[in-house]
């Protein structure tokens, strides 16, 4: 494929300023070679059966070049959920903007830093941990590793709880048009540590660009990580994101994925339960319109016994949008006493919308309890009738029921300000003031 070799050319043409830190260029070269070997997935790949990435594959999105940002704090306001006490790291077009960021002095012995800072302050941490989790067999992950320019490292030491959430805001503007960004996140929550992370992706002034994000989250024994991802990229954008978490014993990992943006998006959330008695929750909501395409893939790998996994994904599809969900729960032979539950619901609002759902159970242990449920349908006629009989107009009834369908899964968000902000966003979207 010509597009792939183009990425190789782009890679070779890029100067690698970190050459002295020998492990990183080595890793990047290995990654671009890996990417070349894998090539972009096609719909013949089982994992990509319902999503064609040819719009991404058929062109070469060069990594966006750093340029001075013209954005001001006022431009950020719609994306910060009104929270000034959160640690805010702002990236514009994939490059860190200290002027816009406001992450205060950390009151505890934790580290929240960009990659460039990490190279100075904790190079061994990066060298040891970066790239250890992200699935190597995926082309997009390899591409991210090859081209990642900057990212965020969060390390929370033993038994420390980071009170304020960390918010990583990725903004793109017109400067990113026809280019790509490959942001990277590494979270290390050591034994008994706690941290809440919000990653937002948004666009100021649309344009076609490609975001290829990878997050690696190491949840130590007894640690807890709450991880929120809000994808509100512009309508012309492409977004591919992969989150891989590993969990030690007695740990908790909560992931919530909210997606309304991008013309084509793929969000992978993978959790490996390595220690006994873990809890993992993977929840998500996507709302699409027009010709948007959103694909969510989750993979919970029960490796150790006595873990529980809970999963609720909901989708609302309007226009001629296309939603895809693939949720896999894999139970290894040793993972006895596994308790897994997965629910996937899709609501079709319009004639042209379509959804493909593939909930999957692969179970190799016998003492388990695993279920999944999936539904696809339209709004309940009885519920609509009931509301109409109470004097609510058909449009408003429809709007209220649609909002209620979405709000149910937003209820699962424990970070209150984020929940309120996303609720408001959906309320505005589904319940226009004139729909009386």
């Amino acid at each position, binding site marked *: 494929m010509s597009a792939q070799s183009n990425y190789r050319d782009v890679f070779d043409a890029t100067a690698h300023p970190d050459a002295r830190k020998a492990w990183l260029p080595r890793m990047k070269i290995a990654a671009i070679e890996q990417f070349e070997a894998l090539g972009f997935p096609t719909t013949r790949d089982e994992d990509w059966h319902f999503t064609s990435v040819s719009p991404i594959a058929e062109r070469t999105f060069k990594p966006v070049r750093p340029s001075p940002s013209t954005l001001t704090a006022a431009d950020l306001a719609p994306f910060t959920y009104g929270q000034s006490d959160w640690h805010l790291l702002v990236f514009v077009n994939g490059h860190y903007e200290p002027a816009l960021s406001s992450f205060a002095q950390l009151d505890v012995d934790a580290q929240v830093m960009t990659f460039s800072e990490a190279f100075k302050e904790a190079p061994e941490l990066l060298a040891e941990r970066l790239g250890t989790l992200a699935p190597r067999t995926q082309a997009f992950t390899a591409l991210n590793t090859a081209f990642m320019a900057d990212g965020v490292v969060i390390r929370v030491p033993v038994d420390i709880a980071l009170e304020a959430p960390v918010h990583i805001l990725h903004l793109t503007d017109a400067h990113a048009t026809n280019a790509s960004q490959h942001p990277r996140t590494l979270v290390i929550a050591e034994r008994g540590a706690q941290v809440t992370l919000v990653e937002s992706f948004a666009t100021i002034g649309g344009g076609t660009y490609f975001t290829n994000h990878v997050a690696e989250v190491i949840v130590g024994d007894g640690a807890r990580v709450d991880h929120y991802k809000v994808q509100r990229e512009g309508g012309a954008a492409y977004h591919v994101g992969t989150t891989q978490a590993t969990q030690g014993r007695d740990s908790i990992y909560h992931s919530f994925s909210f997606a309304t943006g991008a013309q084509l998006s793929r969000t992978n959330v993978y959790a490996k339960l390595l220690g006994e008695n873990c809890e993992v929750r993977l929840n998500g909501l996507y709302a699409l319109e027009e010709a948007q395409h959103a694909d969510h893939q989750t993979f919970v790998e029960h490796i150790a016994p006595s873990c529980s996994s809970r999963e609720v994904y909901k989708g609302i599809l309007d226009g001629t949008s296309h939603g895809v969900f693939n949720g896999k729960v894999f139970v290894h032979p040793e993972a006895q006493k596994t308790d897994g539950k997965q629910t996937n619901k899709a609501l079709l609002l319009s004639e042209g919308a379509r959804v493909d759902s593939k909930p999957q*159970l692969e179970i190799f242990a016998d003492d388990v309890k695993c279920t999944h449920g999936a539904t696809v349908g339209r709004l309940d006629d009885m519920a609509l009738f009931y509301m109409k009989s109470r004097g609510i107009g058909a449009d408003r009834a429809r709007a209220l029921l649609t909002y209620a369908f979405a709000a149910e899964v937003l209820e699962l968000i424990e970070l209150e300000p984020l929940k309120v902000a996303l609720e408001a966003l959906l309320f505005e979207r589904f319940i226009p003031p004139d729909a009386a």
Partner: protein
Amino acid sequence: MSASIESLVNKEYQYGFVTDVESDRIPIGLTEETVRLISAKKREPEWLLDWRLKAFKRWQSMTEPTWPNVKYTAIDYQAQTYYSAPRSVKPLQSLEEVDPEILKTYEKLGISLNEQKRLSGVAVDAIFDSVSVGTTMKAELKKHGVIFCSFGEAVLDHPELIQKYLGSVVPYSDNFFAALNSAVFSDGSFVYIPKGVRCPLELSTYFRINAADTGQFERTLIVADEGASVSYLEGCTAPKRATNQLHAAVVEIVALDNAQVKYSTVQNWYAGDKDGVGGIYNFVTKRGKAFTNSKISWTQVETGSAITWKYPSVILQGDNSTGEFYSVAVVNNYQQADTGTKMIHIGRNTKSTIISKGISAGHGQNSYRGQVKVLPKAHGARNYTQCDSMLIGNQCGAHTFPYIEVANSTATLEHEASTSKIGEDQIFYCKQRGLNAEHAISLIVAGFCKEVFKELPMEFALEAQQLLGISLEGSVG
């Protein structure tokens, strides 16, 4: 009461055998010559040979599917015999010649050979290796205009029907094994129910692979004309052999407007021994096409075969048509099953129901793979899917791969799946009431599968339940 495969096969032999058998088998290997030879042996018309050759050409360009969740050593298609007719000179004369292991099984099932006489309500077209060896109750069926004969006879006697419907549901190019079958199929059954006729008998075919190293490639075609209805039973068995045998069958069902077809299978091919040696590779394509207001219902109880690869499907072509799939699949020892269904909703207000019960024991691996597809014009389509898996022992696996593809907003789909261990407290309760562990399991499993068993014709239901008990023998310490 119970329709035993063995008794039926023996019955045919007791009453003598068809004589137009020319030779035992053709040399191993598969070339265009083989296809021509099979066709010639069956004195087939030119158009059928052409169809076979087209299928063979297509097959040569295809590769064996690797997506099923099963593992097996590669099949050498050149090391198989593609046609094998029973030796008319040496049929089994008495029970002593039957494999004692199989006899023991039937003893456990409580089937006496005399019971065949009580089967008078069932018309049987028994397939012994690849040739239909006899058909009973033809006269009664003829009275109603029902055609029930071997595929070979149908080609000669009713070529217009075969030409019209052969490959209309499963085209020869459909998949690797269907193409192979289309090229080399040896015999099978043909059923035609005329307009408005409710078939007076339950039709039944038993398949049996006898010779070693032969593949069995039977082909069944059932056509229910407008307003007709029929219930068709199929049972399969094979003797014990140390090598793996290939079985690639095709079943096509056409249900024209307002017709109803119910197809029930009890599949008990030899599953290999407890170490996974031998057993049948069962790669089957079964599909029905349902026209306006018609209904096709598949019920299957899969207890045998080393490997099962089978997805009885319904194309819901006509408005208001209905598809059903009820399945129990049991794997024990080293058996592997990748089975499920496809429901393709094309017409308006089409409805499908899928109930699948998988039971894994020993080192067995059981996968449910199902697709429910709602095409853009299928307004008001409705599907309910339930697939439950039960695990007995900690070496086995249960897997669920549903594909839900909806392109119409007025469709309503529900899918539920669960996997759990057999209830220890339930076993304890049964034991406390004086049942031993094996009985307890068989009782619990029967309860687990009740929703499917109740869809089976009575005599099959009883046999299926007992078969299940036998299949799971030794699965608990």
